[in-house]
């Protein structure tokens, strides 16, 4: 019994890749939103960055919820 025949290597690869992208993406986007919230009080340009980062977080959460309904 070979391990390769028992594991869906293609699915495993996709799980690893998309997990990294989603987790790192969410942390980066959310962290940037918090930075923008702090700096936006002094510099207006950060507000655009903040809004973009919040939208990116919401998009990632929407993808997560959609994935949940696809099981």
């Amino acid at each position: 019994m070979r391990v390769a025949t028992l594991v869906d290597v293609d699915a495993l690869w996709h799980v690893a890749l998309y997990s990294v992208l989603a987790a790192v993406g969410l942390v980066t986007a959310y962290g940037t939103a918090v930075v923008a919230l702090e700096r936006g009080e002094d510099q207006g340009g950060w507000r655009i960055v903040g809004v973009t980062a919040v939208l990116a977080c919401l998009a990632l959460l929407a993808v997560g919820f959609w994935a949940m309904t696809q099981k």
Partner: protein
Amino acid sequence: MESDVLLVAVIVTALAFDFTNGFHDTANAMATSIATRALAPRRAVALSAALNFAGAFVSIKVATTIAEDIVDSHLVTLEVLFAGLVGAILWNLATWAASLPSSSSHALIGGLVGAALVSKGGDAVKSDGLFSEVIIPAVLAPLIAGAVGLLATFVAYRVRTRMSRERSDSGFRLGQLGSASLVSLAHGTNDAQKTMGIIALALIAHGSLDSGSGIPLWVKLAAATSIALGTYLGGWRIIRTLGKKLTGDVEPPQGFAAESSAGSVILASSYYGFPLSTTQVTSGAVIGSGIGKRLAEVRWGLAGRMVTAWLITLPAAGVVAAGAFELADALGAGAGALIVGLAGAAIAAGMFVVVQRRDPVTAETV
């Protein structure tokens, strides 16, 4: 009449398992949020309970994988289901008593395999399914989640250097509300579905439900309510292990990164049909976040005990289930199930009382 008694015993036991599943796995979503004080303990378990309840209705596909891919579904009888559930419940309580996060799903699978083996022999167990659906994913889950948690935590602390400590802590605490909620919802979709599948199988085996006719609403409501009540009770001992003992004091960026990583891995694996244990994913993400945070401490001795518990979950639940099956069978199907069920409930209650008296962990002391 005898099969009616057995059916009721299976349904009650399945709901009891669902309750212990919620109780055991509250930590998966909420341990780091409680540790960072993003949420007060009671509020955390109430939120998690509500989301587990809602999650049970998000996906309408029933998780019958356990009974179809691991054991031959044609050989699954009410007696096998009952004994499997008894083994899973008692193992869940044993790991709770030891404050160790272990997979409720693996306990259920181990229980079913053990009961099926003594009932029908080796032909009843699908070894390919057992390896591909359980054993190999069990090895990979903590590794994948650990790597993702490490990277996400590293990034979180890089981002944190660009803001004040106060803003970072308050911002990431707020973010943990979202990340913990996502994990709770995902847990509800995964685990409540398993109990629904078990009850549906029992109804089909009894002849009360046609195969392929879907899950009755009362089954969905009962399973969702049971997992929500168990979650609300809060498995404080395991919450303390995951949130405070495994990596020392968890900080908000670390907690947010661990929860985001666990949620991402759970959802990605669900979408691609790669069955990973929620508990192992969460534990792996917490360990990964401990490594990813500079100067953080991972208590490897405790991590080793957790891995040992994961390794023996399948055989241990299987042995208990096999014993429960033999005992119930010897006493007669209906009466045997009642006696074994009552004995199991007495053991569970005794274990709960003794452990809480010896080393009480509550919402106030977690």
